[in-house]
């Protein structure tokens, strides 16, 4: 007994020494730490493609892929917050372009402006103005968008639509007609998977956009349009009506579970960002054959965007290397390597079109011609603090369906969070 105890103790001490020796990152070496939540699937592969280009151009640099998974970035954001607070920023981190970055790290003075990089690489001419507006703050640009995702897309099962002779709904009225037909035939019209609630907010912002139109929608985030106005109230009522047509187990599913229902034909439609496209393809479906897409009801002509981008924290341990990385991210080569794999479209307008599939090409066309509006759910239109509170209101709203109560709460939030 004593001998085993002694041996165990020895092993413990050895392991302890090992752990103390194992080191973290040190400044001054040729390293690049890229922090993201792209841990698996198309996201990870896309990041890998970017890494390959970067490493080919900078062969002596050690690339550290610091990823944290969980809930569309919520764990990663927790980790990032702790690190930035603790004074140990990564060299660069993935962040949603727009107010999520601006109202947090930029407002805290923790990010470096990147105008010099944009000018040096002539990016101002290849990024649409609408996008530049979203990623700027007081004239300064703070992140390099790598990709663009579209939020306002309605995906539908073509076989189901064909069976009931339905046309994909372009307006909200169309939607309700189509939904009634489907419901009468035993098919749940709209699939929603709002475990974690963000998918409900996602649906909500697109109904809002469809009911209000792009200008009024944008006005909600700047204070130009009040939430407690008649327009918004009727949009909320329309949303409540949409809820009559969703699957009853929506709270148990996340968005991909809902998308699976569309694949199976249990549900006919789902309103989700175009990462659903990547999901459908991975499941073996053929775009345009098995599933189709149109802008979500009432939003034709608007491109509700979100963008993954990389920024430059002040005091990045390896600043020059980080800048090289950002250059790759903003380059045509980088974006054309990343986006086809990830299933998004490039932020640049001069991409090599031959690399993209049917859906992506249609999205790229719309991106150049439509009015670009920022997504609320995904960090472009509002700060994370604001969005977190919006999610709280949504959670009760989806259950209670009390339009007046929700409307007042939304207005309170807007008053609280819109900076004068």
């Amino acid at each position: 007994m004593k001998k085993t105890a002694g041996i165990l103790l020895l092993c413990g001490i050895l392991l302890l020494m090992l752990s103390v020796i194992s080191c973290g990152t040190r400044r001054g070496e040729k390293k690049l730490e890229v922090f993201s939540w792209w841990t698996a699937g198309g996201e990870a592969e896309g990041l890998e493609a970017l890494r390959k280009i970067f490493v080919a151009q900078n062969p002596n640099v050690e690339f550290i892929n610091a990823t944290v998974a969980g809930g569309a970035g919520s764990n990663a954001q927790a980790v990032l917050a702790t690190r930035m607070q603790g004074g140990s920023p990564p060299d660069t981190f993935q962040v949603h372009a727009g107010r999520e970055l601006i109202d947090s790290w930029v407002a805290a003075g923790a990010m470096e402006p990147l105008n010099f990089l944009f000018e040096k690489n002539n990016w101002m001419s290849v990024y649409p103005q609408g996008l530049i507006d979203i990623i700027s703050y007081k004239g300064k640009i703070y992140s390099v968008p790598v990709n663009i995702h579209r939020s306002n897309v309605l995906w539908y099962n073509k076989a189901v639509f064909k069976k009931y002779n339905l046309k994909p709904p372009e307006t909200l009225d169309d939607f309700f007609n189509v939904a009634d037909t489907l419901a009468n035939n035993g098919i749940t019209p709209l699939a929603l998977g709002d475990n974690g609630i963000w998918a409900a907010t996602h649906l909500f912002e697109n109904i809002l956009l469809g009911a209000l139109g792009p200008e009024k929608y944008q006005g909600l985030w700047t204070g130009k349009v009040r939430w407690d106005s008649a327009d918004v109230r009727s949009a909320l009522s329309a949303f409540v009506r949409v809820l009559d047509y969703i699957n009853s187990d929506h709270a148990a599913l996340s968005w991909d579970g809902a998308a699976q229902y569309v694949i199976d034909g249990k549900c006919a439609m789902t309103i989700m960002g175009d990462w659903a496209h990547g999901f459908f393809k991975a499941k073996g479906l053929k775009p345009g054959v098995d599933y189709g897409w149109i802008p979500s009801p009432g939003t034709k002509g608007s491109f509700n965007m979100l963008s993954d981008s990389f920024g430059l924290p002040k005091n990045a341990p390896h600043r020059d290397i980080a800048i090289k990385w950002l250059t790759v991210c903003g380059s045509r080569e980088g974006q054309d390597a990343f986006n086809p794999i990830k299933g998004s479209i490039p932020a640049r307008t001069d991409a090599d079109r031959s690399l993209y599939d049917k859906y992506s090409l249609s999205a790229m066309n719309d991106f150049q011609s439509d009015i670009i509006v920022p997504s609320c759910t995904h960090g472009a239109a509002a700060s994370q603090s604001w969005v977190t509170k919006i999610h709280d209101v949504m959670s009760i709203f989806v259950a209670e369906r009390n339009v007046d109560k929700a409307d007042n709460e939304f207005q309170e939030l807007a008053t609280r969070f819109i900076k004068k």
Partner: protein
Amino acid sequence: MIRSKRDQRIGFAIVIPGFILLGIFVYGFIGWTLAVSFSGWEGILPNWDFMGLKNFISLFHSERFRIDLLNTFFFSILFLGFCVVLGFTLAMLLDKITGGEAIFRNIFLFPLAISFVVTGVVWRWIFNPTVGINALIKNLFGINIAWGWFTETKSFLGFNYALIPVVIAAGWQLTGYVMAMVLAGIRAIPIEVIESASIDGAGEFRKMTDIIIPIIKPVLFASLIILGHISLKIFDLVYTMTGSGTAFVTDFPSMYMFETTFQGHFYAEGSGISIIMLLLVAVVIVPYLYSVLKKEKA
């Protein structure tokens, strides 16, 4: 019992380092959290303006927080009840059989070895109202359970029915602990005590209530303390299994704290929630600690 000054000093020297470390890592950090809970820190930049009790007052005005407190209360009671009743039953059953005890015991104990994250994921699938256990029972027995499990938004006097599947999942994970404790307690009862009761003509039920329960009461009590504090802090399991749920039916203070601090950057509010969680825990634990102190003095 310390005889020499030297021994006294050694005794202190051994205990004090751990105590100091805990002083920092527990009490120091709690102090920091307390300070932040009185501040106006909202956003990335620290803001140390003194806000008094404002954060706490707004928390109690918050609908979500009120729901959280009710959830904590109901969940804890049901969870503890589940574990104690099932654990006790399993222990009694296991005690009665001769062959195969090891297999069954391992089956009931193994969930303790699994992380809460894994448990949450699997039970989320199982309790899915459309394709989970409802579908299974329908296919096997033809019975239709038209119930939404954790998607159920109905409640009764503040008790959200959606908590029931969470109780079952958490109970699945930790019942084995109570079973092990009770089994250990039963086996510690000298066989003569039980046999003499049999001679006296006591039936099974009498034996249980008069002999076994009183003797294992301390064992049950200790498990209640351990399980109780787990239930007050529950996070990993609910986070992965149900999330907050529509209308916060499965929301808990720990999740509210996590989201509001790390996603919303509302540090003061998050700290306020942490302090209240600590107070809740203290309400349960301090009487226990006090009784421990008193017993020692005796």
